[in-house]
């Protein structure tokens, strides 16, 4: 991505400059090639290396579970691969491949049900770590497995306060709302979602928070389903009210 951006900006500069276009064009291509030669093979090689580890981890995990292994077994290969990926992180700080390695290392720990180890590793991440956006999903998954959302809420609150990336701050606040909602603390959930709507308007996070506020208010079991009138694929007008007296299954689906 960064490479593409750089290349685009070089080309844009070239074609935007009047005068000595030929010279600049040549220089530009030379520059592009140099940048390509310096960055691409190394970073792609590192990404390939991490992806190969992840691929092997997946294969090992499949064989382990086929042969009857349980997630919490000490011989779960996810533990070995998680450690290897974490070691990679420590040796190569701050690269895109490291972000991927970090996320997968934590995901594998979660899959092996090592929740306290997961938390200990997450505790070492600084607030500006680029992996947070995915890590917060891993933490949500761990929380819903253990039905304990307190760690997620504490971490997300720290991110909502101190993260550098505003998207991560918004996402963290949204997750605080989701966590409270899961624990049926609707008042706190509502407050968190309202904060997302107020502080990050016009973002997908605000949109999701608005949807959740609507659902908390109006889409609970026992409440009347929101009515609608539509035309079917065969051209017939239908209204949900037409089906009073019948049990209705609504299936939201997609061909993709």
């Amino acid at each position: 991505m960064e490479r593409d951006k750089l290349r685009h900006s070089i080309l844009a500069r070239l074609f935007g400059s009047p005068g000595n276009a030929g010279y600049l064009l040549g220089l530009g291509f030379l520059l592009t090639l140099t940048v390509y030669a310096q960055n691409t093979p190394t970073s792609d090689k590192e990404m390939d290396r991490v992806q190969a580890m992840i691929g092997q981890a997946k294969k090992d995990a499949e064989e382990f579970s086929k042969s009857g292994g349980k997630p919490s077994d000490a011989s779960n290969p996810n533990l070995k691969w998680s450690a290897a990926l974490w070691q990679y992180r420590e040796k190569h700080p701050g690269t895109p491949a490291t972000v991927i390695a970090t996320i997968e290392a934590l995901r594998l720990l979660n899959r092996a049900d090592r929740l306290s180890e997961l938390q200990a590793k997450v505790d070492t991440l600084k607030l500006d770590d680029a992996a947070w956006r995915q890590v917060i999903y891993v933490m949500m998954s761990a929380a819903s497995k253990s039905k304990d959302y307190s760690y997620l809420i504490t971490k997300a609150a720290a991110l909502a306060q101190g993260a550098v990336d505003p998207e991560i701050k918004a996402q963290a606040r949204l997750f605080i709302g989701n966590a409270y909602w899961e624990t049926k603390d609707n008042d706190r959930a509502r407050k968190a979602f309202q904060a997302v709507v107020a502080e990050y308007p016009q973002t997908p996070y605000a949109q999701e928070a608005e949807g959740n506020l609507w659902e908390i208010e109006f889409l609970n079991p026992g409440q009347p389903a929101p009515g609608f009138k539509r035309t079917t694929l065969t051209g017939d007008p239908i209204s949900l009210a037409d089906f009073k007296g019948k049990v209705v299954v609504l299936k939201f689906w997609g061909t993709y």
Partner: protein
Amino acid sequence: MGEVPLLKELYAQYQNQGVVVVGISLDEELKPVQEMVTAKGMSWIQIHDVDKTLVKLFNVKGTPTYYLLDRAGQIAAKDIPMKRLPGAIDDLLKK
């Protein structure tokens, strides 16, 4: 899409017992929806929610998502997995 055969079975079993199935497609394009509905024989009511109004109305975040409504039009279950639908429908029909 792996659940279509199960839903077909469910529809065949319940369509004459006072159960309505409404498929609401989130696709951008209409054509693949029509093609799949025909190819797979999904003969229940189909709506193409092209402007996403129903998605918003029911706060749907992914597919498939099922809502189950009772005879009075009240929400009986949301995000219910396919495998639990027949039992839940039976319970509602007994009421």
